[in-house]
Each structure stands twice: as structure tokens, then as C-alpha cells.
């Protein structure tokens, strides 16, 4: 079996683990993702739907938080693009409920300068955010970057203290129990644990994990680290694996 096929198989199992929809895997590999777009303005919704479809995605839309959550349950998408300003159940709540139901990545649509939105959205569990008006090319790049986080980097199993990371199957066990990570959390863990002891700056992590340019928002990293710690650390307050290097960034271990 060639290397590509092995990765494909690994990817299928991971994608199934993440989305629960084995049929989706092929589409991701083709660069086509099933996207749920939740946006209340009909024209913006239609415009983004047209553009994302043109970029090759399979787009379903919802105009309210409630409808979005219904659509999410009826056929789980690969990724959710979520406007935060929604009537009724707002974007933050939608994000929290999506997060409660699994590890499907969420990209928020925010207004520039609305730090409140960004902080709230990240706290609700969003993986990334883009500022409206967003160019579809940029949004598409972010979508693909998020989805790429669920592809394996290397074959092998890393055992680091009470952690067991299967870099091919993209599964993580903590003290023998499997832990479900979002694509961002998973890729952050893979990046950090790939070079134990090495210090990564926030900007480096933003470029490697989020594929952002040099002006990336370091709060994405901090937020993701927090959520990752909550999942893999025995006591997240005094982390043993993902450690903060004050004034610089993060490093994995030394355990």
C-alpha cells in the first residue's frame, strides 16, 4: 500500500471520527467541503453562498440560529461559517451548542474592531474568525486551512507522559481514554509535541497551525491552548504538557 493510500485511509477514519459522516471524506480530499453558512441577511447569505460554491464547496444556508442548529443536526457539515449577529439565538450561543455536540470547526464572521465579538466568539469555542466584509478568496483559504488541520503529518505514535498521540490515525488518548479534539486543537498539539522542549512564539503557531499572515491574532492561540489544556492536562491550572513561556509563547513539556 502506497503512502498516499495509507494516509487516505487514516484520513477517512479521522474524518469519520470528527464528523461522524464517512461519506464526507472524499469531498474533503477533493477540496470540496460541506459548509453550513448561518447568516441572517439574505443578500449577504446569497452572495457568500454563490462565491463559496464557485470555490467548489457544497454550501447549505440557514438564516437564524435555530434553523442553523436544526440544519447542523440533520446533516452534520464539515465546517460552519457563523455570523455572530443573529436575531434570536445569537452566534455565541449557536457556537457553544455546536461545540457541545462535537468537534466540527467553526469560523466566525465578525465586524472589525469588535474585540468583544472576537473574545466572546473564541470563548464560545470558535476556531477562527474573519472580518466582514470578507473576500471569498480569504474565507476559502481559511476554510481550507482549518480542514487541513485534520490531515495527518507523519506516521507514528508519540507517547509523551500520560499522552498517546497517533499521528497517522490522528487520535489522542489521555491516560488510556480517547479524547476528542477539534482540528485546531489537534494540529496545535501535533505541532507542539513534534518538537518537545522547543519554544514556539504565538506568531509561529499562528502561521503553522492557522496559516495566518504576520498580523495574526495571538488570542486565537491563547484560546486554543486553554481549551486544549482543559482536555489533556491532569490539572489545567498547572499544565505539564503545554507550558507557557512568559513573554514569548508556548512549548511542549519537558515532561
Amino acid at each position, binding site marked *: 500500500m502506497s503512502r498516499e493510500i495509507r494516509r487516505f485511509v487514516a484520513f477517512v477514519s479521522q474524518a469519520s471520527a470528527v464528523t461522524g459522516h464517512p461519506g464526507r471524506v472524499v469531498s474533503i480530499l477533493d477540496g470540496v467541503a460541506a459548509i453550513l453558512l448561518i447568516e441572517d*441577511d439574505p*443578500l*449577504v447569505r*446569497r*452572495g*457568500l453562498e*454563490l*462565491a463559496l460554491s*464557485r470555490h467548489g464547496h457544497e454550501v447549505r444556508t440557514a438564516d437564524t440560529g435555530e434553523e442553523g442548529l436544526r440544519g447542523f443536526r440533520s446533516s452534520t457539515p464539515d465546517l460552519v461559517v457563523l455570523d455572530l449577529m443573529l436575531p434570536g439565538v445569537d452566534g455565541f450561543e449557536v457556537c457553544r451548542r455546536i461545540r457541545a455536540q462535537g468537534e466540527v470547526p467553526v469560523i466566525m464572521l465578525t*465586524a*472589525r*474592531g469588535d*474585540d468583544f465579538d472576537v473574545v466572546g466568539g473564541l470563548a464560545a469555542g470558535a476556531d477562527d474568525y474573519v472580518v*466582514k*466584509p*470578507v*473576500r*471569498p*478568496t480569504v474565507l476559502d483559504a481559511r476554510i481550507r486551512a482549518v480542514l487541513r488541520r485534520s490531515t495527518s503529518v507523519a506516521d507514528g505514535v508519540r507517547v509523551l507522559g500520560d499522552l498517546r498521540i497517533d499521528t497517522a490515525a490522528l487520535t489522542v488518548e489521555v491516560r488510556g481514554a480517547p479524547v476528542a479534539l477539534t482540528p485546531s486543537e489537534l494540529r496545535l498539539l501535533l505541532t507542539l509535541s513534534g518538537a518537545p522542549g522547543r519554544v514556539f512564539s504565538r506568531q509561529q503557531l499562528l502561521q503553522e497551525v492557522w496559516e495566518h*499572515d*504576520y*498580523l495574526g491574532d*495571538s*488570542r486565537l492561540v491563547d484560546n486554543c491552548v486553554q481549551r486544549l489544556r482543559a482536555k489533556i492536562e491532569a490539572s489545567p491550572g498547572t499544565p505539564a504538557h503545554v507550558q507557557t513561556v512568559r*513573554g514569548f509563547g508556548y512549548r511542549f513539556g519537558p515532561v
Partner: protein
Amino acid sequence: MSPRGLRPRLLVAFVLVTVLGAAAVAWSGAGSASTALVTSAQQRLTETVAAQIAAVAPELASPPDQSALERLRAAVGRNTLVVYQDLRSADGSVSALVTDALRSAVRDQKRLMAQRITAEGTPWLLLGTPVMTTALDGARTPSGIEVYAARDLTAVEQEIDDMTGSAILTAALALPLAVVLALLAARSVLRPVRDLRDTARRLAAGDLDARSQPQGADELADLTVTINEMARSVQTSMAAMRRMQADARRFAADVSHELRTPLSTLTAVVEVLAMTADGMEPDARESAELAITETRRLVRLVEDLMEVSRFDAGTAQSRMEEVDVTRAVHDCLRARDWLGVAGLVAPGAVSARLDRRRLDVIVANLVGNALRHGAPPVRVDVSASGEQVRVAVTDNGPGLPEHVLPHVFDRFYKADAARSRTPGSGLGLAIALENARLHGGTLTAENIDGGGARFVLLLPRDAEVR
């Protein structure tokens, strides 16, 4: 309190008036009292002497002999001189006191004359009178006898001195009383004045709620009321102005916000147009390209407007982090493909604590401006002192016209009426300046020798969020 303050001036004036008044009253009182005293003493002495003479005179033989003169002198009392032609009878020191002037006056006028003199420190009243004889028919003729009497006025003088002393004492006693009264008066005048001063200071310091409580119904109370009215009217105008300003800002923010929704749609769909433009007719393709360009420009303009609104509303937030300024400037140039047209000169890594995104905005706007309005090559110098980071952007163009220089950071200021090259939003330099200020830094524009404009950004290395 300064020596020229109102209080000392009021105090001095009040005390002067009181003391001078008291002194004048006491003085004139003492004067008229002493005059009355002297007059009455003189009257009394004169009557006594006249009576004594009258009691003895009828018995005198004419012409009188020495013994008659002696008797008369004894009857009048001590310090008496009686003269009749060459005869004289004297007692005490009167002979030395009687002046020729008095004697000739008595002789000429033939009636009682009085004179006050002071001899060797003792005040005397001198009286001189001719003794008249009364004939049987009642006619009075001078007998040729003259009587001079000297009477010691020391007791009267003493009385006058006592009176003057008590007048001075009265004036002296009035002094502390005058001071106390002056202080009270000064305070009653100065308290409202000081209140007004404090109120004016608070008003000047921006506390438009400051008011003084008018006391009583005098001119100062009027002034207080007037100043309160002035403060109220200033407060009303300020409130109205603030409200209008806030309305204007909110309007700009709202407009920009509302524009963002249709722009989101446009931004999305023009890309679909761009992706399909190749198969279009030439005119349709050009239209699509125009739509794309103008949409991007509109997006930039609205984003800049919203950024300016945030600065105006004071809601601009910054996220400070350790930044290598050289690296950040390099990244800024690289991300915009400017490394070929703009040269970076830096001593190496320059660390500072600032907002990375805002630094990028400043540098991008300065270099973008230099490329649009100046001429390449554009030079970016990064340097640092202990406290500050300096980023200078210099172009090779003709420099800024003198009349443009003061307005270069104005919003929507157009240096040239005809804009030939790709325009910016017209807000770039204004936003760059606001961003520099947010860091507690400065941004200045100047022309350098030999042409070319230079913009100099100075930022504190450890900026506290303003």
C-alpha cells in the same frame, strides 16, 4: 495673601478712616473744651479781681499814698502789682511778668485787659485794669491807679492736658476696634469674592456644574447671580454641542456600519464576476473589473471611516505586545510587495511594546502615501534611542508644497485638485496620526533639503495604552 490683595487694602483704608476720624473728633473736642475752660477760668478770675478791687477802691484817698496801694494789693491777693504814677506795690513775681504791651494797652484803653503768657514753663493769666472812681453824679473817671494781677493757670492747663490725653487714649482704643471691624467688613466682602473666584476656577477647569450661592442682595450677590447664569448658559451650549458632536459621530459610525452589509454582498459577488470574467465580452469584462476595483476601494473607505469613528468615540482599543519593529516594518513592506520600491534601513532588531496591527497600519499608510504622492525610491529608516523608536519614511519626490504641510494629516484633504494616481481613502494619514497618538507617540511631516517629503514616527518603546 499678597500685600496688594483686597484684604490688606480694605484693612488699611478702614483703619485709617476710623483712627483719623476718631482723632479728629477727639482733637476738635479737646480744642473747644480747652478754649471753654480757659475762657471760663479767665472770666472767673477777672470777676474775682474786679470785685476785690471794687470792694477796696471807694475807700482809697485821692491821690493815694503808698499804704493805700499796699492795702489795695493785699485785697486783691498774691501776685498783684498796684501802680500809681511813680508809686508801686508789688507782691510775688508779677512785676517780671507784666509786659509793657499790657501796661500800655491798659493805659490807652482804660479798661480791663487780659493776657495769657507762659513764663519758665508756668502758664499765667495776666490781668490789668485801671481803677475807676465814680463821682457823685455817676461819672466814672480813671483814678490813675492800675492794678495788675497774675494768676497761675497750671491747674487749668493740667485739666486741658488730661482732656487731650483722654482724647488720644480714645483714638488709641478705637484702633483695635477699627481693626476688628475692618477685618469683619473685609471678610463679608471677600468671602463672596473668594467664592466667585473658586467657582470661576472650577468652571475654567471644566466643572460646569460649579455655582456660587448668592448671599444677601448687594452688588456681589448680583455678580454671583450673573456668573451663575453665565455658567448655566455655557453648560447648556456645551451640552448641546456635545450632543451634536456625538450625534454626528454616531451618524458616521452608523452609516459605515450600515454600508458594511451591502458591501459584504458586493465583495462576495464581485469575486464570482472576477472568476468568470475571462469568458465575457470585452465591455462586460471591463465593467466587471471596474466593479471589482471600486468595490475594494469602497470597502477600504468604509473601513477607514469606521476606524476614524472609533478614534472619535474614544473606543479604539489596542493590544500591546513585544514587537520587533524592524521585522514588523519588513513584514509590512513584504506583504504589500513594496520591497522592490521601498528600502528598509535598520540597525537590526528593535524591540518595543506596541500594537502590532496599528504599527502596520501606520507604516503602510506612510509608505503608501510616499509611493502615491512622492517618487521612488522610498526609504524607511528604523532607529531607536533608550526611550523611543523612530521610523522615518522619506520619498524622492518634489516634497510637500508649503500650503499643504499644515493640512497633511487632515481628513479628506486633497493636495492636488486633479488626482491622477490611484487615490487612497483620504483618511490614511489621519488614521496613522491617531494610531501614533494612541501609543503616546507623535507623527510629523517635513520637507528635507534637496526635495522629498519625510514623515517621522516617534513611539515610546514601552507605550502605555492611552
